[in-house]
């Protein structure tokens, strides 16, 4: 792993990805300390240029996932593991286009929630509409875009969306928040080939062996700690 904190690609990543936000507020001092000296260095890889998200959306995404799964002494955060890249790549997938869902009308959005998702938005539209609405709300309330708010205030906004206390005109805040959180966790825990979970950082943190998918020898040893680290689908080991 040649990707040290001071390497050009790392610097480019920080410069390009954290345009409007001070680096410290996103990555936090503990994450930087860990990536310098810890056993599992955080590596950002080459800078990723989003295909779907616009520059302001990209700032929002990074600022949001950094609060949903922050970096801490327990392990890497969503930002270091490339969750924004995961999200952007998903938007261009059939999933992002709503291709996996039944999307024919009529739409009855005020149906009881137990009958499931009934909005006309495909995921990529939910992100586009939701981000603009939240940024607009933040601008009116705090005179700043979401990504420019300090971490505590970003948390407050996210809590407001989660509980539906923040009312957005364009769509239910809870629907947007719920998709953002669900996809963030997907990117955090999915195989690294989808752009998130770089170097299997989340799998190492919790102890999941990834795509090993063979425990015939271990089932006869109940209660013993499994000794091997994760592998990825493409064969990376850790």
């Amino acid at each position: 792993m040649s990707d040290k904190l001071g390497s050009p690609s790392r610097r480019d990543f920080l410069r390009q990805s954290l345009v409007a936000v001070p680096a410290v507020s996103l990555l936090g001092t503990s994450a930087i300390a860990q990536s310098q000296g810890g056993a599992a260095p955080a590596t950002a890889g080459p800078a990723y240029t989003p295909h779907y998200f616009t520059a302001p959306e990209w700032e929002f995404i990074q600022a949001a996932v950094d609060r949903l799964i922050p970096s801490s002494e327990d392990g890497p955060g969503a930002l270091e593991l490339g969750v924004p890249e995961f999200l952007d790549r998903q938007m261009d997938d059939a999933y992002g286009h709503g291709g996996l869902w039944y999307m024919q009308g009529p739409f009855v959005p005020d149906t009881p929630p137990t009958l499931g998702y009934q909005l006309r938005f495909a995921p990529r539209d939910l992100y586009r509409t939701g981000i603009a609405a939240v940024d607009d709300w933040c601008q009116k309330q705090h005179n700043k875009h979401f990504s420019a708010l300090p971490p505590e205030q970003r948390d407050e906004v996210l809590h407001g969306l989660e509980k539906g206390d923040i009312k957005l005109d364009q769509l239910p805040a809870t629907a947007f928040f719920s998709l953002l959180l669900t996809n963030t966790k997907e990117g955090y825990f999915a195989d690294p080939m989808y752009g998130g979970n770089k170097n299997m950082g989340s799998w190492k943190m919790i102890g999941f062996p990834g795509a090993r998918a063979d425990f015939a020898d271990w089932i006869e040893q109940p209660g013993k700690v499994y000794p091997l680290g994760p592998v990825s689908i493409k064969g990376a080991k850790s």
Partner: protein
Amino acid sequence: MTRMKPVDVVIVGFGWTGAIMAMELADAGINILALERGDYRDTSPDFAYPRSADELAYGIRGGLFQPLARETITIRHTLDETAVPYRQYGSFLFGTHVGGAGIHWNGQHYRPSPEDMELESHITQRYGKKFMPEDMQIQDYGVSYDELEPFFDQFEYVCGTSGRAGNLNGEIKDGGNPFEGPRKREYPNPPVADNYAAKLFADAARTLGHKPFPQPSSNASQPYTNPYGARLGPCNLCGYCERFGCYMYSKASPQTTILPVLMRRSNFELRTNSHVTRVNLDNTGKRATGVTYIDAQGQQVEQPADLVIVAAFQMHNVRLMLMSGIGKPYDPKTGTGVIGKNYAYQMMSSIALFYDKDVAINPFASAGSGGNQIIDDFNSDHFDHGPHGFVGGGYILGGQTGGRPIQQLTLPPGTPAWGEKWKRAAKDSYLHTTGVQTHGSVMSYRDRYLDLDPTYKDSFGLPLLRMTFDWHDNEYKMTRFLTDRAQEIVDQMKPRQSAQTIRKPGDHYDTRQYQTTHTTGGVIQGKDPNTSALNNFQQSWDVHNVFVTGASAFPQNIGYNPTGLIGGLTYRSVKAIRETYLKNPGPLVQA
């Protein structure tokens, strides 16, 4: 419209029951054509390692499921509501392509209890007719456990089922299920070794006087060659079972147990990308002349056939019967009509167990069914229901089916959904958490049924199937009773903390929460053409050259997973077709 060359038998849908029908009829020397709307699919290359070990692609995005974009169902809770589409996967999962839902099942392979087959008669006899709520509409299958026993056995030997007999020819055996109906011989394979959580569960259950035993599993425990000559490999507890194809050739599916032999038969043809939209009838309406399907290019094709076997997934069977006008549609207001009648489901609850860091559960070392332990003390009518006031029951399972972190990470109650505390809980809990589940029956009711939706259409412009369903009091009582018994076992397992997920009175059916894919009914079998769509050989009462296989035939749901019963009913039906019907086409049972 293109008209194809006539065949003797056309099979609609090529999952478990389509493959069984084709395989068993191939020996009769007739021409058999199976029409499958999806693509061809086989273990290699479609489920090959390491691509199969991809939680996002299969577990979350549903790579093996029917794309809902093209066709779904609509759902409402009561008769006076407007149904809305089931737009994203949640509470149940349709299969697609060759193998159907027989690819992504878990291999949990049960026989029903003898009383399940004659439930209405049994409950009436033991507790009196008043024991059942007025709108409960349970019925007998019209065939007994004893009549089905050879066919359950046949399907288990095809699947290479791993388990331990509890009742061998009436003799109760240690270590098996003492409540099961008598079986004539042992399972073809011994049980898969227990996972650690299953051991903890079995020890606790035994302490309480219950009778734990290995969950019957069509995850082969050792290399196995089935009666057709198909070979299965031993399960390696990879942790990618439900929602996934099995790269080890060990989970029974049409691909591992039947297709290697069937695909070589010269009198069998499989035509994929063929979406059947109707069973055609002659001008009397009493005889089917074949089917109409839409081919890969979107063209309508007529396929004449002497015999039509409707073998798609339960809901698709019901829809095809309604679209074809076979049998009178069910009317919930009058209780008359038979197609769409007695839709039922299952009700699960679960208890998560959180242990301290010195207990290594290793949740990833799991199979869909192999390695788990269950108790059957509170299923079917294995206990006196009198004091409890409900019909039905379920089994209680200890163990796990995988430790895939997106979907199977369980955190202690009170953990925030995100942020630093969520992450710490994920790190601290993952390796030290397991679960106990209850898997319970749902009865059938007058106001729970399936019909065609008046508004929503599929991608061909045909009406979607509409489900009208919600839980009833009987089921809330059932799940409360079962969950209380499970909690007693959990307490005995001595976790640091435990947390229940249970559906309580007042909770509506929630399409967002996975329950089971064990949806049943709609083309039910029985003794009387006024109250059932099929006779006990799964033959239409109305159109004798139409047979309908699968869980659509269940008059109400059982506490067990349905595949063993589906296989047994199919083997019995095809034997009658081969030995009786083909020689002398006509009703196999006189109405």
